[in-house]
């Protein structure tokens, strides 16, 4: 087989990447209360504990509300940004797109601290709405990238054909462009949802007293007794993320296939 050494290296590298994720279910089903080897017996108690936990349920509800709202807002904003950047030329395009993509590289601590200072000084009550504000901001660049790929592979003549057949700008967008970029939109929604669900720093600073899943997990990691349950929760989250990402990837590829472009690879 070609590239033998490199292939072995790449597989070892994948093992390194997956090491923590492989350990997660091992400890989640381990009956020992300490997270270390050797393992004790098999148990599903931790999962039971997880489902009965009321504060966890509250954190989950909050996280779901935040993730759904942020992904919808970020995707809407992303549609505008992607459509503008792929279809139109306008003054200041480079710097403007740079500013929109900036949250991608700006450390989250800076984003959250600066937003926190502003919110506190204008007297806004911290709650899940303020988290949505922050999450929409950090999801927007990802949504824009995914949607730009979708819009970029559009054939402009399809749109022109719609105009020639008497459609208005809006109806051409709704009837021709939107269905073609739909897979991109779904992919962007799922991706933003996953990012928001997992985001810790912004939620930590901007949620006030409302728990979200990551801030709940962070608060519990201090208590050794709670760790096995957190491992069970982590297992569920990993399985969910993998399912969501697989669906997102499926739609991304279908989108590319639909517009007849060549697949250039991953998410970023």
């Amino acid at each position: 087989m070609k590239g033998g050494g490199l292939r072995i290296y790449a597989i070892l590298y994948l093992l390194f990447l997956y090491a923590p994720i492989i350990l997660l279910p091992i400890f989640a089903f381990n009956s020992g209360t300490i997270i270390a080897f050797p393992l004790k017996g098999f148990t599903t108690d931790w999962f039971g504990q997880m489902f009965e936990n009321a504060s966890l349920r509250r954190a989950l509800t909050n996280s779901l509300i935040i993730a759904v709202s942020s992904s919808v807002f970020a995707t809407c904003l992303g549609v505008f940004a992607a459509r503008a950047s792929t279809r139109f030329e306008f003054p200041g395009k480079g710097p403007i797109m740079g500013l929109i993509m900036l949250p991608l590289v700006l450390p989250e601590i800076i984003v959250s601290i600066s937003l926190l200072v502003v919110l506190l000084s204008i007297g806004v009550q911290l709650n899940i709405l303020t988290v949505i504000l922050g999450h929409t901001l950090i999801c927007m660049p990802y949504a824009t990238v995914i949607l730009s790929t979708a819009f970029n592979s559009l054939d402009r003549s399809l749109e022109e054909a719609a105009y020639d057949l008497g459609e208005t700008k809006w109806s051409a967008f709704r009837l021709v462009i939107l269905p073609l970029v739909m897979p991109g939109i779904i992919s962007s929604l799922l991706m933003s949802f996953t990012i928001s669900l997992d985001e810790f720093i912004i939620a930590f600073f901007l949620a006030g007293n409302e728990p979200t899943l990551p801030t709940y997990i962070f608060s519990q990691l201090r208590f050794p007794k709670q760790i096995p349950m957190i491992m069970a929760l982590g297992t569920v989250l990993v399985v969910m993320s993998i399912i969501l990402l697989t669906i997102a990837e499926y739609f991304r590829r279908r989108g590319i296939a639909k517009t007849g472009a060549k697949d250039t690879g991953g998410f970023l």
Partner: protein
Amino acid sequence: MASGNRSQKTQGLGLIAPPLGYAVLVMAAPLLTILAYSFLKDGYLTVIREFTFDNYRTVWGDPIFHKIMLRSLGVAALVTLVTVVLAFPVAYFLSFVVDPRKKSMWLFLITIPFWTSYLIRVFLWKVILGYNGVINSGLKSLGIIEQPLTFILYNVNSMVITLAHAYAPFAILPIFIALEKIDRSLLEAGRDLGESRIMTFWRVTLPLAMPGVVAAALIVFIPTIGDYVTPALIGGGKIPMIANMIQAQMLDLDNRPMGSALAVTAMLIVAIMSLIFVALNRRFLRVKQ
């Protein structure tokens, strides 16, 4: 087509307005506020509206800030080096060896761990590297070591490993994209002109891949320096990085002007380092692909 151009402009600007407005309101304005705060005076529970450079003087004269900033830069530089060096062969493998039909699958496999709970991943590294962790208890039960390895216990090394793991896909993707863009006929030309495989890599592939390497380094370096979770969990709060220091100033001590001055100083240092790094690699970035 002057009118067409103008309508292009207005339509483009009209479309870009909502996301731009959002970025300005929720990101740019708060950043400017931080900048303004950093020049104000701290009163008890309030901020006194009086212009001063005192915060910056205190930050720059503070030995604790020096120590923490140097540690953050050191950790981030080491993480960047480790991630990029480890990632390059994987990106090379993906671009040059893997069957094109399987490329998306490999990329997908590489990105999955990145999207799973960051907190739990960081915590699990503590479990893997800890005193009774997977590595130490494994090696002990195999009889290879008697005492736990101390160089991976709750210190800077374990922080570097954890962060290198967290940012791995960030390094692979830009390098992979740069390698994909390389015109394969250039490599054949190199070989035809009598260069060995290694020399072709050194003189053709690597320089052409440099824009990707530079992008990878920056995309790892900048967020790593601002990482809050890893020092808090792995270092047990005892080896703080700059993000932990900013948080402490802003919230625990409630000194917003000082916290702002810290944040602005840190951002400036990161920006300057990034610019120097890009300038050093200028000659590679000019390459037309």
